[in-house]
């Protein structure tokens, strides 16, 4: 005879219930989350604050201040964005069937809310930090009609932006980030669980901007990659190439004297990605610190390695020789 309630507890318990206050979890499997969805209330604010803290005295001070203003405008655009559409259970199921991320721009068609985000970003961005050419790009986007904006967004997401549009693409990328971050935040992390981990975002299929390794020892020490589009982060094995999945011939390069950041270089595909160590510097933010550490990219590029660009540093950089 099973006591009342026990049967239910046995059948419908959560797989990994959060420990209650004071509950002893010794002996339980200490695992960090496989997927962390973005927190809409803080994601852009933390990023903007980090960019403002990094800017003073930096070689790219003006650029970092511009992106800080852009991210602040993203935060403002996020609050009061009109209701959008989300993939339902059937779409998520279908996406899983074809092994794509549910918010992959190739299979999920965006709604119009991103253009509202774009116009708000263009309206509210601090004009004082914008150089003339950035203002020209802003004006051009404000004048642009719906069709050309949609086609620019398609080209950005599909990876086919013309060189002359690089400045406009930054604003478009920011608006798309707002829309995709909101959609990702409304997903259920359980729907994104995958059997095999990949180098692409489980929520939207975009490449990661950088990886963060949490403090080691008794606190997991796992690496989480951070999505360049929707700010979702997901766990990925350390010492494994983000681009080709190789675990062979991985080497790390860092500026002499800096311990918080290393470039994980793969000799197999000649790609690299940045790995930040939270243990060494606690205030890290994946996208902001990636922009602030472009100096490392220059040196690592000279050694013959290439990366997937940050969405705000899109442009004609040297393609790697084959």
């Amino acid at each position, binding site marked *: 005879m099973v006591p009342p309630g026990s049967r239910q507890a046995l059948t419908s318990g959560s797989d990994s219930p959060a420990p209650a206050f004071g509950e002893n979890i010794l002996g339980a499997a200490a*695992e960090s989350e496989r997927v962390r969805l973005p927190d809409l209330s803080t994601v852009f604010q933390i990023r903007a604050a980090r960019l403002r803290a990094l800017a003073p005295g930096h070689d790219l001070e003006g650029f970092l201040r511009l992106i800080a203003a852009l991210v602040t405008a993203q935060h403002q655009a996020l609050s009061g964005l009109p209701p959008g559409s989300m993939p339902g259970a059937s779409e998520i199921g279908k996406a899983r069937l074809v092994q794509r991320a549910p918010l992959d721009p190739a299979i999920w068609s965006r709604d119009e809310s991103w253009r509202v985000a774009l116009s708000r970003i263009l309206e509210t961005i601090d004009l004082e930090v914008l150089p003339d050419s950035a203002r020209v790009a802003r004006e051009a986007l404000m004048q642009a009609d719906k069709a050309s904006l949609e086609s620019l967004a398609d080209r950005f997401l599909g990876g086919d932006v013309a060189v002359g549009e690089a400045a406009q*693409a930054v604003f478009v990328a920011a608006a798309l980030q707002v829309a995709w971050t909101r959609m990702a935040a409304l997903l259920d992390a359980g729907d994104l669980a995958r059997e095999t981990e990949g180098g692409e975002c489980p929520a939207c299929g975009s490449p990661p901007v950088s990886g963060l390794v949490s403090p080691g020892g008794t606190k997991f020490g796992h690496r989480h990659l951070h999505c360049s589009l929707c700010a979702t982060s997901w766990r990925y094995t*350390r010492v494994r190439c983000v681009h080709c999945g190789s675990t062979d011939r991985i080497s790390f390069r860092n500026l002499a004297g800096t311990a918080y950041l290393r470039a994980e270089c793969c000799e197999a595909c000649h790609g690299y990605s940045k790995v930040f160590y939270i243990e060494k510097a606690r205030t890290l933010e994946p996208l902001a610190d990636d922009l602030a550490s*472009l*100096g490392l990219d220059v040196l690592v*590029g000279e050694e013959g390695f290439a990366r997937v660009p940050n969405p705000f540093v899109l*442009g004609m950089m040297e*393609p*790697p020789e084959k």
Partner: protein
Amino acid sequence: MAVTRRQFMKVSAAGLAASSVGALGFMGAGEGLAAGVRPFRLEKATETRNTCPYCAVGCGVLVYSSADGAKDSKARVVHIEGDSDNPINRGTLCARGAASLGFANSVNRLQYPVHRKPGSDKFERVSWEFAMERIAKLAKEDRDKNFIAKNRDGVTVNRWVSTGFLAGSACSNEAGYLTYKAIRSTGILALENQARI
């Protein structure tokens, strides 16, 4: 030529000026950045997954090695820590495992075969060929002398009980399988694993 958010790009000072950084109005920023970073040296290190050599738990370790600062530019192990992605130890190590850096770099570590001749009181360095041949010859001699093909009742048993074999602890299942197959095929029964010590 198109600009893409998915494909590989090499970052360079000139490239930054041609990217959205330059397009937004920061043309000279790339050169300034490159000049600012030029005085820094790039340090190189490798991280290698391995299994801790001590006991049978088989904890995963990450071995950091670097050639920086070494006179002969030969890479040396500089740090060893638990592998967070290993399901067995989840990044933790016991006191011995955590101290295995000293084990790897120990000056007392045996790096080549040594041989103490019968009647001698000291070890001498020998070649691998010599060591292999010597062991094989003695094993063969012992097996020829003591091999038991049939027991008292005439049943075939093929035993070689005068020699035992001790295998390593940090072996994978596959290495364990091969060890068992190779050693049992000689008739050895006293096959043991260092795991139990």
